[in-house]
């Protein structure tokens, strides 16, 4: 495995057409190709532009609250009796999740492109809230597409988006979840491509989105790497993050790709269990295909139709995954596992009671995996979990499971 890690020039990927090995690329209708070329040109230009990067950095510090802490979860570590557990506190970002790192970046690009209207898709609502937030701040019109089923289970976030001035459109087609919201946002974009900027929330979609979102989210890993070095004098032994589309995981992983000693583990939503088929774990149980503009691992049937997914967490309930994860899996640079709804719930409660931090259900999957592996590691080893969001949005879901009406 270390041979693979050292042989790859990570900075050279994706290639100029957005490929990570056989994955990624740009699979969209012709109408969008021009807009994607334009986006790629402006993204490549401004990521080299000191003025743009300074503005992004100022927003990160003043608006998002970066750097977020790396927190040593000492009590949980002691209880687990193995590796030291560190939490990268993306739950402390403004709006309550890592999503805002990306929406700030893309909104600054939208402003430079002169677009007056922003659209987004959202699952759990975190990306929608983060998009509505930056749109409000920049005075841009904002439309957020959200599956009708997700609107039911994430109602506090729907209200937050509306307070921020966004128009939240309920998507009734297909399975009425995140993938259908993405389809609908693409349809909007194809129709209004002249004045509209589409802020995709994860490291999927047509090139340049997977690379661009990764670059905005990589601030997580850059900070975590420096903080861990400063706190312990060494690099962590492993990084653990939940993976739906995979933006928080890539954000943490990417700055460590060139550190062969650092293991990377992505945790997918196992739902009711992989064997039941009711899950959202394409890397663990899917196969390569093409959806939403990129080639990647998908959950599909024998006819190539995308199948319904399931997860207790709306943010992981997606049948695809970012193409860079697909590639890291094939290379063996990262490994991907799954955690069931039930394990995630137990981890949610344990983190809440042990550390006084209420995590979102998405990173609760990563916590569950750490609860499993940390005891088998030595106390002089360490793990970093990306605590990608806070759990306020999930209180209704949790309370309902316990028979409590809020």
């Amino acid at each position, binding site marked *: 495995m270390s041979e693979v890690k050292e042989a790859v020039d990570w900075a050279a990927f994706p290639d100029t057409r957005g490929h990570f090995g056989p994955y990624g690329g740009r*699979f*969209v*209708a012709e*109408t969008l*190709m021009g807009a994607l070329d334009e986006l790629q040109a402006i993204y490549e230009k401004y990521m080299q532009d000191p003025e743009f990067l300074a503005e992004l950095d100022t927003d990160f510090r003043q608006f998002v609250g970066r750097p977020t802490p790396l927190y040593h979860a000492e009590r949980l570590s002691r209880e687990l009796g193995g590796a030291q557990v560190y939490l990268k506190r993306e739950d402390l970002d403004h709006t309550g999740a890592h999503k805002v790192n990306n929406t700030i970046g893309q909104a600054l690009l939208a402003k430079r492109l002169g677009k007056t209207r922003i659209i987004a898709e959202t699952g759990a609502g975190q990306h929608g809230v983060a998009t509505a937030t930056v749109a409000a701040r920049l005075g841009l019109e904002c439309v957020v597409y959200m599956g009708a089923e997700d609107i039911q289970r994430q109602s506090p976030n729907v209200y937050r988006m509306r307070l921020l001035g966004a128009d939240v459109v309920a998507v009734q087609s297909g399975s009425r979840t995140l993938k259908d919201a993405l389809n609908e946002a693409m*349809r909007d974009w194809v129709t209004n491509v002249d004045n509209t900027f589409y802020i995709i929330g994860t490291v999927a979609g047509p090139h340049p989105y997977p690379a661009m979102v990764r670059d905005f989210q990589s601030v997580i890993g850059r900070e975590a790497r420096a903080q861990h070095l400063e706190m312990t004098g060494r690099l962590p032994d492993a990084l653990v993050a939940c993976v739906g589309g995979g933006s928080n995981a890539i954000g943490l992983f990417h700055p460590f790709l060139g550190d062969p000693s650092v293991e990377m583990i992505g945790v997918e939503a196992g739902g009711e269990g992989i064997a039941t088929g009711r899950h959202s774990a394409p890397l663990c149980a899917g196969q390569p295909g093409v959806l939403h503009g990129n080639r990647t691992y998908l959950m599909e049937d024998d006819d*190539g*139709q995308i199948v319904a997914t399931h997860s207790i967490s709306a943010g992981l309930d997606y049948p695809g995954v970012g193409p860079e994860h697909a590639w890291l899996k094939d290379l063996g640079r990262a490994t991907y596992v799954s955690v069931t709804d039930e394990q995630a719930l137990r981890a949610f409660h344990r983190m809440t009671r042990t550390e006084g931090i209420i995590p979102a259900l998405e990173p609760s999957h990563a916590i569950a995996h750490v609860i499993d592996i940390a005891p088998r590691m030595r106390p002089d080893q360490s793990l970093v979990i990306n605590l990608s969001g806070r759990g306020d949005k999930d209180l209704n879901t949790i309370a309902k499971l316990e028979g409590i009406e809020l």
Partner: protein
Amino acid sequence: MSRIARRFEETRASGRAALIPFVTAGDPAPDVTVPLMHDLVDAGADLLELGVPFSDPMADGPVIQLACERALAHGTGLRHVLEMVREFRQTDTDTPVVLMGYLNPVERMGPEVFVNAAAQAGVDGVLMVDLPPEECEDLAGLLERAGIDPIFLVAPTTSAVRLQHVAAAARGFIYYVSLKGVTGSQSLDPAILGARLEAIRAISDLPLGVGFGIRDAATAAAVAQVADAVVVGSAIVRLAEQHPEAHGQFRAAAAAVVREMRTAMDAARTATPAAV
């Protein structure tokens, strides 16, 4: 010469624009599709576009989305669509059939397996909506070797540079998307359209088909004056939505729309060409 090229030679020679109806295979039920295809030919269709149902038709409007859902509810997949073409070919060896859909079902079947099966079934052209020329080298090569035309879209947003790429990769005909939007959107403007088509003709000799937004006979007639082919989809598929159970009524209504468009298109071409 391919069936598509031959058919365009015929329509050009007779001074007509070709009429290409689109229907989603398996909508509203699998056993409707082949008889419907024959009906559409009898009503004046020159080529047929057969939609391959997909669960996530990103470039389609609500009419075709719902058609996909109805077809998938009956389990109509790519294998069945190829079977329908084979059955159609048993009694019609002249009318070109173009499959239109999304890449993933083809990827799942395997490009080689798909291309061989499509050639054997009698498919003449393949248009994958989410497969631009940049990503299609492998599939386009396989299709060409099997004598099937890879067909590509050109959009109002396609730059001059991209147009060169698309024209170089395209065979059969070029499908011009008449407006920014999904299938079944608002009506197009024939005046702007004429200028766009001239720009494409400057670099490609292929026939130009125009689709998206042609919802009535008057629009079809106007487009027929500037294009080599008129593609009509949502206006027909919408009828399946209106007659989900009454299959006979749906077939009759679909044929009537095609007949009406055929008449209007031919009348417009024989009249003194209007400035459109």
